[in-house]
């Protein structure tokens, strides 16, 4: 915990807060400029028979007669103290609606992450330890394949095989253990590809290092070399990659929850999209951004402690708080570098 680390932590913390606030503003602007706000639409519907006076009263109750900037300020200040507003459709506090569905999505995302890590480490292990000729080439193609299959196809395939043909779980009980497991597999597969890619790159790099050659020359077998020497340094970047995939787990939940018939954040979003329940959408998107930013902040703060080679000072003058700081780099790597 030296001064340079603390400065780095402080800088990242400020950045994270700024990004969360900006994400809220961004979502608010996108959502509030939706053509025709749903409140007025409902009120103006002649079937509901509101008088002009009542309309004016309700509109001012929701604060919709205020300028956008004032609405934004009010909404943002409520958000900061944890008040997410009231759903336009059900009149329930958004906090409650979100709290109801979070456990289910959290369980799904956590299981998906676990599946992804197990799969990724298994694939990575195979690429280093299987006979070069048969196993490795096939395994190395897995991440690329995993990234090419839409999650909904994997989900439907799993349901077709394990629910309809093998009868392992029933689609009418989406919260049973097996159903959750297979939903997690479908959600976790694309994530596992990204983790596996980083792991394989790391392992290939480490096994070319001199210390690996020394260990081999002293008679260490490939399996022991892998477990004792190669695995640890190659696993470090996994921390960053996993943090980056949080967004994908949340986004992917939209599709997977639909397919497996689960209630969760994904189904809440879909319902709010179809009913134009803007406060709920605003809340879910901003909370997703908060989760992403917090998880990535933690990953960035933990990383230098795990890996002493990482420098916490800005790389150079022009790198100051810029787009390409060292801990942020792996985003780029995830997209661009495939072993």
């Amino acid at each position: 915990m030296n001064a340079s680390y603390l400065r780095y932590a402080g800088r990242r913390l400020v950045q994270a807060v700024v990004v969360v606030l900006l994400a809220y503003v961004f979502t608010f602007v996108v959502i509030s400029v939706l053509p025709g706000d749903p409140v007025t639409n409902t009120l103006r519907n002649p079937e509901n028979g509101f008088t002009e006076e009542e309309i004016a009263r309700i509109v001012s109750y929701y604060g919709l007669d205020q300028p956008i900037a004032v609405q934004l300020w009010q909404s943002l200040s409520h958000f900061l103290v944890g008040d997410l507003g009231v759903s336009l459709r059900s009149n329930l506090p958004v906090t409650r609606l979100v709290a109801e569905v979070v456990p289910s999505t959290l369980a799904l995302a956590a299981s998906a992450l676990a599946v992804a890590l197990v799969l990724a480490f298994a694939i990575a292990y195979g690429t280093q330890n299987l006979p070069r000729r048969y196993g490795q080439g096939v395994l190395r193609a897995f991440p690329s394949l995993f990234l090419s299959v839409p999650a909904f196809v994997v989900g439907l395939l799993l349901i077709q095989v394990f629910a309809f043909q093998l009868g392992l779980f029933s689609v009418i009980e989406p919260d049973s253990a097996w159903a959750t497991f297979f939903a997690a597999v479908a959600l976790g597969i694309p994530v596992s590809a990204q983790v596996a890619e980083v792991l394989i790159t790391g392992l290939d790099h480490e096994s070319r290092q001199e210390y690996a050659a020394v260990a081999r020359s002293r008679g260490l077998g490939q399996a022991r070399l892998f477990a004792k020497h190669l695995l640890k340094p190659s696993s470090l970047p996994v921390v960053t990659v996993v943090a980056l995939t949080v967004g994908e787990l949340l986004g992917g939940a939209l599709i997977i929850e639909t397919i497996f018939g689960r209630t969760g954040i994904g189904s809440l979003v879909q319902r709010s999209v179809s009913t134009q329940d803007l406060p709920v959408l605003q809340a879910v998107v901003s909370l997703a951004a908060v989760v992403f930013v917090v998880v990535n902040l933690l990953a960035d703060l933990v990383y230098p402690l795990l890996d002493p080679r990482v420098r916490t000072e800005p790389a150079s003058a022009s790198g100051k708080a810029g787009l390409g700081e060292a801990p942020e780099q792996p985003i780029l790597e995830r997209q661009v570098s495939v072993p």
Partner: protein
Amino acid sequence: MTATTTVVGSRGVATVRGWSAVVPPTVLVSFAVLLVVLLWSLLPGVLASQDPVNGVPADKLLGPSADHWFGTDHLGRDLFSRVVHGTASSVASALVAVTIGVVVGGAIGLVAGSAGGWADIVLARIVDVLLAIPSFLLAVVIVSWLGFETVNAAIATGVSAVAVFARVMRAEVIKTRRAVFVEASVLQGGSRTHVLLRHVLPNASRSLLALAVLQFGLSILVIAGLAFLGYGDPPPASDWGLLVSSGKDYPTAPWLVYAPALVVVATVLSVNRISRWLRRTD
């Protein structure tokens, strides 16, 4: 002897604009797949002669056969024909998405990288915001704002890809600006615009191309996902994602899911293979 000849024949040496590289067979296959996809999207009527919208009710839910390569759906429509006719919108919308990403993201990255200072910091935070919101969620919100159409799904996908392009572009610009030949160009009196157009952009274009190809595959998946959730053109449009989505209601006719799904996977796999090959030959 024959084996050797085959290998040599299929790994012909190609020199594409100065890249002298051996084209691996899998890359050739990938190009062939994309060529088929391209033909499907350009000439759907020629390659699939059956009517994609009006079916023969008597022929409903038939399995794959010589007459119906991918079988038929619940209205007796030829699925192969529907897949082929849905290609243009599935693939073109991914191209629209990538174009938005390259142009907007590239511009942001270019300004951030070449201006530096405050502009860089401000743009960096904007990009961070775009990255912080899960891209699929962002796409859903944007598409619900624009309206449920495939064009809008493409725009939404493009916006959610802007951040990635901005990052890569900025990194490339900074890398090139520090190069000795750029310094030399500036010392010889090269203006900022000159350096940008003559040196920075051409150098960045390769990384950007590989990323664009990769993002193209990703966009096909995202747009298929949006169509699957019903955020694209409604039926009788036959976007690939929509076909899978309507096919899933007929578990007794699994080809309704597998055939379009296989087409998506083959296309994206080919795109990804080519992207990886482009990066390696850099």
